[in-house]
């Protein structure tokens, strides 16, 4: 009995570690080896690293990437925090609506805001005068599009961080005479600290590794993600390309360190003795604020829809559906959309089990500190790995003839696994944030009552975390619908996803068709998202009544 209590968790956690080692560390290791090889596969030591530091464009790109990512993080958090605060700490009306609108950018590939911005603020854009002569192409455009694209991630994490709070703290503060400002800075902000650091690290690394946006809006402004593309695709130099890819991992180690640091200071917000905080402020100001943000988010999507429906921008504005006849623009036609649906459903199903299970094992199991640190570290790693780098690593790793998993190559399974791994971090962070807020007393009490850990997990933990679990599943679904960089090297003619088709169409300049396929993905993801809201409502009624 006692032994089974010890080895079962170790076995489970070991399984997770093994999965991440094979499908994340393995490919990255293969990529690391490439860093020391020339293009003919000969060992050349540090030659590629010397090439990196002595190339002014790569050093400049590093600086640019850090600037872009920092600005995007600051602006996104500044915009997302009041949004999440309004959703969780005020009694404003229309919360479900605003919550859904905040997720709108997730439903479309990041290429969509980039394309829309061109039509709004580009040199022939509808609102180009707003730019007052400044060029959209460069840091300005990249930051605007990135804030749009990564706003949902920040809201998702902050909403969960802010959604539970102990009302006794606020009552005590009020009784002691603390005003609302003081209460905000001494209770709310410290309580949301972990969520803020998580959101910052997620947005920072997303902005750092996205390459769709700088591809469209980069202009004269090279960043690391596009330099990886340039080295690998343009120069076919896998060595230097791998080095540039690994350079993106450095800021992630920093983010990882920050996340660990703040996690160490985080105490459970909700103990078995808590009284749940119930917002009472009417939140009129928040309605106005969230409304304004909502209009901006929807406006960008509406522009994409508009562009997809006209004949030839800007010279022939007749409405047409010809841009939706994808067979004319891409060899896979509408078939790519079917592939994407399968890929997204599979990622949502398996990815949710993977990420929530992994987070549960690392947060709630007793002991095994070393193994936990390994799984936690590996779980954060995919954040800073540009999908293209991960995809290339997959080729280098699974392509080795000696690899027993060689047969996966070219199948839908490898796309599925690669996407799950690529998106692992946000799922893990969301789950971990939700799990950390549950008092460890639940497990302790269950153990003392001789209730099995599995029963506590399925009867207490999962129902309590159901909102977070559903959020993870839907995040994985819609992101898998739009992910492009991770799969661009891995698809085969039968498994080409729509996101890759969009990139191909944009690259060949058929922008209206690219926008049209973006809209198809957007619409289908929106339908799934609406279904999710309905299911969530029904389930929440049953399992979350305690939240009030």
């Amino acid at each position, binding site marked *: 009995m006692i032994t089974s209590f010890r080895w079962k968790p170790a076995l489970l956690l070991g399984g997770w570690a093994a999965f991440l080692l094979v499908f994340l560390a393995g490919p990255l290791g293969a990529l690391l080896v490439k860093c020391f090889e020339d*293009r*003919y596969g000969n060992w050349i030591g540090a030659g590629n690293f010397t090439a990196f530091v002595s*190339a*002014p*464009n790569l050093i400049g790109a590093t*600086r*640019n990437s850090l600037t872009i990512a920092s600005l995007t993080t600051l602006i996104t958090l500044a915009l997302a925090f009041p949004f999440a605060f309004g959703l969780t700490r005020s009694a404003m009306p229309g919360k479900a609506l605003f919550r859904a609108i905040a997720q709108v950018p997730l439903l479309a590939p990041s290429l969509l805001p980039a394309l829309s911005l*061109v039509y709004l603020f580009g*040199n*022939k854009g509808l609102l180009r005068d707003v730019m007052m002569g400044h060029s959209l192409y*460069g840091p300005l455009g990249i930051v605007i599009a990135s804030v749009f694209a990564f706003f949902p991630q920040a809201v998702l994490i902050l909403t969960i961080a802010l959604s539970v709070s102990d009302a006794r703290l606020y009552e005590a503060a009020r009784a002691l005479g603390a005003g609302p400002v003081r209460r905000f800075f001494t209770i709310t902000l410290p309580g949301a600290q972990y969520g803020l650091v998580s959101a910052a690290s997620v947005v920072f690394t997303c902005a750092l590794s996205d390459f769709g946006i700088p*591809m469209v809006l*980069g*202009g*004269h402004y*090279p960043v690391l993600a596009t330099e990886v593309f*340039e080295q*690998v*695709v*343009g*120069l*076919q130099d*896998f060595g230097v390309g791998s080095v540039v890819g690994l350079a993106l991992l450095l800021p992630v180690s920093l983010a990882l360190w920050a996340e660990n640091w703040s996690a160490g200071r985080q105490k459970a917000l909700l103990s078995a003795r808590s009284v749940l905080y119930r917002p009472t402020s009417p939140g009129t100001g928040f309605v106005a604020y969230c409304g304004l943000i909502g209009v901006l988010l929807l406006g960008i999507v509406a522009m994409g829809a508009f562009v997809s429906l006209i004949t*030839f*921008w*800007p*010279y*022939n504005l007749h409405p047409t559906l010809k841009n939706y006849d994808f*067979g*004319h*623009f*891409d*060899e896979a036609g509408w078939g790519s959309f079917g*592939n994407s649906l*399968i890929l997204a*459903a*599979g990622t949502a*199903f398996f990815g949710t089990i993977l990420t929530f299970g992994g987070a549960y094992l690392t947060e709630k199991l007793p002991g095994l500190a070393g193994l936990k640190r390994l799984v936690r570290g590996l779980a954060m790693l995919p954040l800073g790995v540009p999908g293209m780098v991960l995809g*290339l690593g997959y*080729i280098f790793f699974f*392509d*080795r*003839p000696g690899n027993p998993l*060689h047969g996966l*190559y070219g*199948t*839908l*399974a490898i796309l599925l696994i690669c996407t799950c791994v690529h998106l692992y971090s946000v799922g893990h962070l969301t789950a971990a944030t939700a799990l950390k807020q549950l008092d460890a007393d639940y497990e302790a009490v269950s153990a003392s009552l001789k209730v099995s850990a599995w029963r506590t997990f399925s009867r207490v933990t999962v129902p309590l975390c159901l909102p977070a679990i559903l959020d993870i599943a839907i995040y994985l679904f819609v992101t898998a619908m739009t992910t492009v960089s991770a799969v661009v*090297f891995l698809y*085969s*003619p*039968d*498994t080409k996803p729509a996101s890759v088709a969009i990139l*191909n*169409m944009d*690259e*060949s*300049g*058929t*922008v209206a068709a690219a926008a049209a396929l973006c809209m198809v993905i957007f619409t289908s993801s929106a339908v799934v998202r609406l279904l999710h809201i309905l299911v969530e409502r029904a389930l929440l009624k049953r399992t979350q009544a305690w939240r009030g």
Partner: protein
Amino acid sequence: MKMRLMATVAAALVLAGGWASFGIAGAATRLTVYTALETEQLAPYKKAFEADNPDIEIRWVRDSNGVITAKLLAERNNPQADAIWGVAASSLLLLEKQGLLDPYAPKDVGAVKAAFRDTATPPAWVGMDAWMAAICFNSEEAKKKGLPKPKSWADLTSAIYKDQIVMPSPASSGTGFLAVSGWLQMMGDGPGWAFMDKLDANMAAYIHSGSKPCKMVAAGEYPVGISMEYAGVQQQNEGAPIEVILPPEGTGWEIEATAIVKGGHNEEAARRLADWAVSAKARDQYARFYPITAVPGAKTQLANYPADAESHLGRNDFAWAAANRDAILAKWTARYQGKAEDH
């Protein structure tokens, strides 16, 4: 209830995955062909080939030249492609140098102009047609900005075009590279770089893809673009107010070619594709898009294609371009990308 639902979803996924990876069983040989052809070329080429070879079915993997080349290099130990049809000859030279191609002389290889095929016997690659760098010019936007129509490469260095020009980056686009390689070969090394220095001063942006600058010009984002001539003519035919200018100094160009991948799974079918790719029927297909064909005498023609295009093809030594590609790109990148953030 929940478990049953999960089991159903899982089963459905496994079935779907199996279906997608094994495909629908059929009698035809499925030939995996890697290509960088324009999308609108894929369907007619496939249809024409399969009409003559009903027992072979083409499975396309299409991407830009860069991506396809990178893919072939990365898959060297486990080739997924059987044949290559419609990829830049300079890319194929690179693949050949690394021993990834299986040389084969198609039955009618004699019909192919000598300049359009590998000099070795049997050739590692055989050309289909040629495309070239050209200037796309949006006359409507230029009128609004008071810009004159450029008539030559040299005109583009005039200060009047400051921040009005886009071109593909040679580091990521085959068309960008052939333009640069063309200037260096026609003008000579020193004057070539001096020209590019002046051109860089006028450049609004370097774009990642070859046909896109012309499409940006067609959409009015920029008045002047350096791109491939086909993209310009095609946009013109779609109703964009643009003109395609082939500079009198001559222009860089490139061959689209066919090759067989070493270690592919369907060698016999790949050879039949290579045979068919130099046939008169294939030539007439190519000519509807790229009128300068490797096998002369095409009976079709792309509408509005400049009649004297072939006379603009500049001096081009593919072996020189392939051998010097790394050095040219390193120099180009250091010169024009390093100072990128000053713009």
